[in-house]
């Protein structure tokens, strides 16, 4: 999660650079196309004006390509953002369902979630303003309800679901 804003900023400056480049190209193209058109009409078409027309066409095509690229980049950024949100939302939902299934109390749910986030007993105790002994007892009850032997298995329970072919089905837990 820590490198997300970084990645986003990078994607953003990339799109800004692309957009600025497109506009510069457009300014250049307008001048060049105007010049080429003028030459084409004022003099009889020769090799010079044909090459100029070719360059003008290439330049305009380049702008369209850059625009297309920019749009793809923007759409990709948008899709990634959405996928990430969906995944995060789904994961929370999976955890919630599973906690329901195990019949955790509200306090146990909170402790369980903090434990999944990787906080240790003393940190959880400090966050919840509870004694470490209380948290340890809650953790033990959670492990008992989940039928796991300890924190590693507890965390693995959810990761296994993510890696396997589906989300925690209530019958699997039973």
């Amino acid at each position: 999660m820590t490198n997300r804003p970084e990645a986003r900023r990078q994607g953003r400056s990339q799109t800004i650079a692309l957009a600025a480049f497109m506009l510069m190209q457009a300014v250049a193209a307008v001048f060049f196309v105007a010049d080429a058109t003028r030459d084409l009409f004022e003099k009889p078409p020769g090799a010079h004006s044909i090459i100029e027309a070719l360059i003008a066409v290439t330049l305009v095509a380049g702008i369209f390509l850059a625009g297309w690229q920019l749009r793809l980049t923007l759409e990709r950024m948008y899709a990634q953002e959405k996928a990430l949100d969906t995944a995060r939302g789904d994961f929370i939902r999976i955890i919630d369902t599973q906690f329901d299934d195990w019949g955790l109390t509200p306090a146990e749910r909170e402790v369980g979630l903090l434990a999944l986030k990787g906080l240790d007993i003393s940190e959880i105790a400090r966050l919840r303003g509870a004694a470490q002994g209380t948290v340890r007892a809650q953790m033990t009850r959670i492990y008992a309800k989940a039928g796991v032997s300890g924190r590693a298995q507890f965390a693995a329970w959810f990761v296994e679901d993510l890696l396997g072919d589906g989300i925690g089905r209530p019958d699997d837990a039973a």
Partner: protein
Amino acid sequence: MSDNANTGGGAKVAPPDPWDPLVRISHWTIAAAVIINGLLSKPGGTVHVWVGWIAMSVLAIRLGWGLLGPREARFSAFPPDPKAAVSHLLSVIRGKPREYPSHNPAGAMMVYALWAMLAVVIATGLIMTDAKSPITIAEERAAVEQGDWSSLANRSAGDDSDDSLAQSDIVKGVHETAANLMLILALIHVAGVAVESHALRRNLVRPMIKGPPK
């Protein structure tokens, strides 16, 4: 997919962050061009023509982006709809404006009006300068200053009858009227953004400068 983004009630709607970099850069470039050419630069001067040509290319790109760009930048996201514009203005007065993923209907009408004015100003400007690029104009002026008047020959060769003089007066009048109209529209546009920002309790200018929040 975008439809369910604005059907939810009030606070549930995520504030839209619709402006991609190209929309933002072109918006501010054109704003700067309007201010420079409308208020600061000398009409007919090289700077004036330069700025006009840059505005022309930026407008062209933006219109292309209206077909090619991401959903919020496309014309289809803000169709011209005077009826919807009026009802949106009424909802702003009542203090309960709806959120839109792109321009709101009133804003959309303003966008088209501004683009149309811009197009008129650019077109008449091109007619007045004989569609000469600022580079050509600068070159010709330098030549004339050095005593070479041949570039003026073409102009006097063409019939300088009363007809064409009257015509160029009309073009000039249209150019100036449209430019003034555009400045007035721009002022209304700024006022509209301020009112809408106040009604939505959200700074609408920030996304146009910085892009998506977070």
